[in-house]
């Protein structure tokens, strides 16, 4: 027994010294089928091609990064984050600025990267409906979603403010391109919340997770809901009676960031440059129906026209949507969240 332990310790020590010579990065993501897709499409192939050792971990989001940075014990080199949380973490000084001389974003959709976070995949907040209730002619825009006369039935809506106000304003007659200008004041936020307040008697559930959206639709608990397109595709695959439209969807993205003081910052930067290339990004839709952030990934031939038609970032679909504004979230999210909470608890 003692011998085994000694051997293990020795082996571990050897491994550590070996790694110190090689380059290595620790990547934290959200686990589940999402991280599996990232691992198969991005991390593992890039590891094989660059020789950089990849250590994967799962984590609970930016709260973990804050803890690591504030205690000076940073172990993550790269973290996967929602674009909004990344923007807030950046404003707090928790992230390293990215070097776009190293990472090539010349083919990226505009707005899918910023100074601290480079987009990894694109998803969309869409309106989904139960095809048992409405057939194929469900709500085609947010005005329809909020119109209980034209579309009687129960709704589900997001339980937090993120991605909740933009649809309400579009339903209230604001043109998509003006949405963030109108939201740039407490009065504008209140206008959006009032629209949701109006719909509230018809909102059966305020959802809080992606799994919940899929479940609500599969079980027929509500007739329509807002949610992330990939979840509805999965629900459909599982036999759920659900359909959705990209029209007026909110184009959002998950991104990669480097925590302030990451132990292998330079390797991480180079690794991000690698996985942002089209040759990796074009494999992602094979494992999950989220689109690449690099437009060139559509030109490699890996993504068929049929697959592209179902991805939020395909040229045709992205043209119908409103890219979410990170500046707005960085500036207003906490204020808007509390106003939203007031509405929820009424």
């Amino acid at each position, binding site marked *: 027994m003692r011998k085994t332990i000694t051997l293990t310790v020795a082996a571990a020590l050897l491994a550590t010294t070996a790694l110190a010579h090689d380059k290595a990065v620790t990547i934290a993501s959200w686990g589940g089928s999402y991280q599996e897709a990232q691992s198969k499409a991005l991390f593992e192939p890039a590891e094989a091609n660059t020789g950089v050792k990849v250590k994967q971990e799962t984590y609970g989001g930016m*709260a973990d990064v804050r803890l690591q940075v504030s205690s000076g014990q940073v172990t993550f080199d790269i973290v996967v984050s929602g674009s909004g949380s990344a923007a*807030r973490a950046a404003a707090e000084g928790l992230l390293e600025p990215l070097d776009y001389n190293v990472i090539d974003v010349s083919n990226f959709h505009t707005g899918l990267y910023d100074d601290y976070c480079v987009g990894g995949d694109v998803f969309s907040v869409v309106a989904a409906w139960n095809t048992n209730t409405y057939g194929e002619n469900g709500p085609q825009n947010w005005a329809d979603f909020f119109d209980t006369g034209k579309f009687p039935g129960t709704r589900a809506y997001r339980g*937090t403010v993120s991605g909740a106000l933009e649809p309400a304003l579009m339903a209230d007659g604001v043109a998509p391109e003006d949405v963030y200008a109108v939201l740039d004041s407490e009065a504008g936020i209140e206008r959006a919340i009032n629209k949701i307040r109006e719909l509230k008697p018809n909102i059966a559930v305020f959802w809080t997770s992606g799994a919940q959206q899929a479940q609500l639709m599969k079980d027929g608990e*509500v007739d329509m809901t807002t949610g992330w397109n990939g979840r509805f595709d999965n629900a459909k695959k599982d036999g759920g009676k659900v359909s959705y439209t990209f029209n007026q969807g909110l184009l959002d993205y998950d991104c990669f960031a480097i925590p302030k003081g990451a132990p292998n910052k330079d390797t991480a930067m180079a690794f991000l440059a690698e996985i942002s290339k089209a040759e990796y990004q074009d494999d992602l839709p094979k494992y999950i129906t989220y689109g690449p952030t690099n437009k060139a990934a559509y030109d490699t031939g890996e993504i068929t026209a049929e697959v592209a038609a179902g991805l939020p970032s395909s040229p045709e679909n992205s043209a119908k949507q409103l890219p979410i504004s990170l500046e707005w979230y960085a500036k207003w999210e906490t204020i808007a969240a509390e106003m939203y909470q*007031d509405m929820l*608890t*009424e």
Partner: protein
Amino acid sequence: MTVTDLNASGLRRDDRIERWRLFGLASPALLIVLVILVIPVGWLFYVSFIGADGTFSLENYERMIKRRSYARIFQTTFEVSLITTGLCILIGYPLAYFMSQLPLKWANLCLITVLLPFWTSLLVRTYAWLVLLQRQGLVNDWGISLGLWEEPIKMVHNLTGTLIGMVHIMLPFLILPVYGAMRAIDRDYMKAASNLGASPARAFWTVFFPLSTPGLFAGALMVFILCLGFFVTPAVLGGGKVILVSMQIVSNIELFVNWGAASALGVVLLMLTVGALWIASRFVRLEQMTGGGH
């Protein structure tokens, strides 16, 4: 110095040594309490006064006063906890009484049935209610196909569903202490009461019920306090509309990425809980619940 004095000082010394020994025996437990309770709670207080910029600030408390939602969330938390406790008493007390009157063999069987849900994870039991109660769930499907009602009844994703789930999960916490207290009541008391001419109802209310109250208070208080911190069940069955303090603590951590914003909620909840205990202690002697003070 007389012999008595010598004896007395010897006794005092023995007494001191005895006390130190007892303290020595208790010290590991005291240390654990200090490390896992006193220090973290102290830290919670401290962090709640740290603002977003990392300096001393009252902003976490100001926010709770300024925004309407916080008062409502605390109100909902106490309302839901009170109603759950009330329902648990209404259902649990008669059941415990029934069990206490059974022969021990049958009572033990009942006890196992009461405890059985503990063997299943809380999350599983909560989701089971979701499956049963939702719009196209088992209960609605059967009710409609049997012609009992026509339109699906809204039983979940609201307060009703939350209460059903919470009562189900909390019931054993009430039944166990009540049953224990009832078993301990000498049956001869009731016989004596009848012998002295009391009707069964009078014998129950003047003799049995008062003797069972320590168990009832202990169970009710346990249910109430556990409810105050409940998270999973209201989060799943409340449909996002029944928001309790614990849920707000989670959203504050996610939203403000700031422990202080969440700690302040924890502190206020702790204060209110202590306050509720204090009020309860005005009416009930708390030491009764542990079986002392008879």
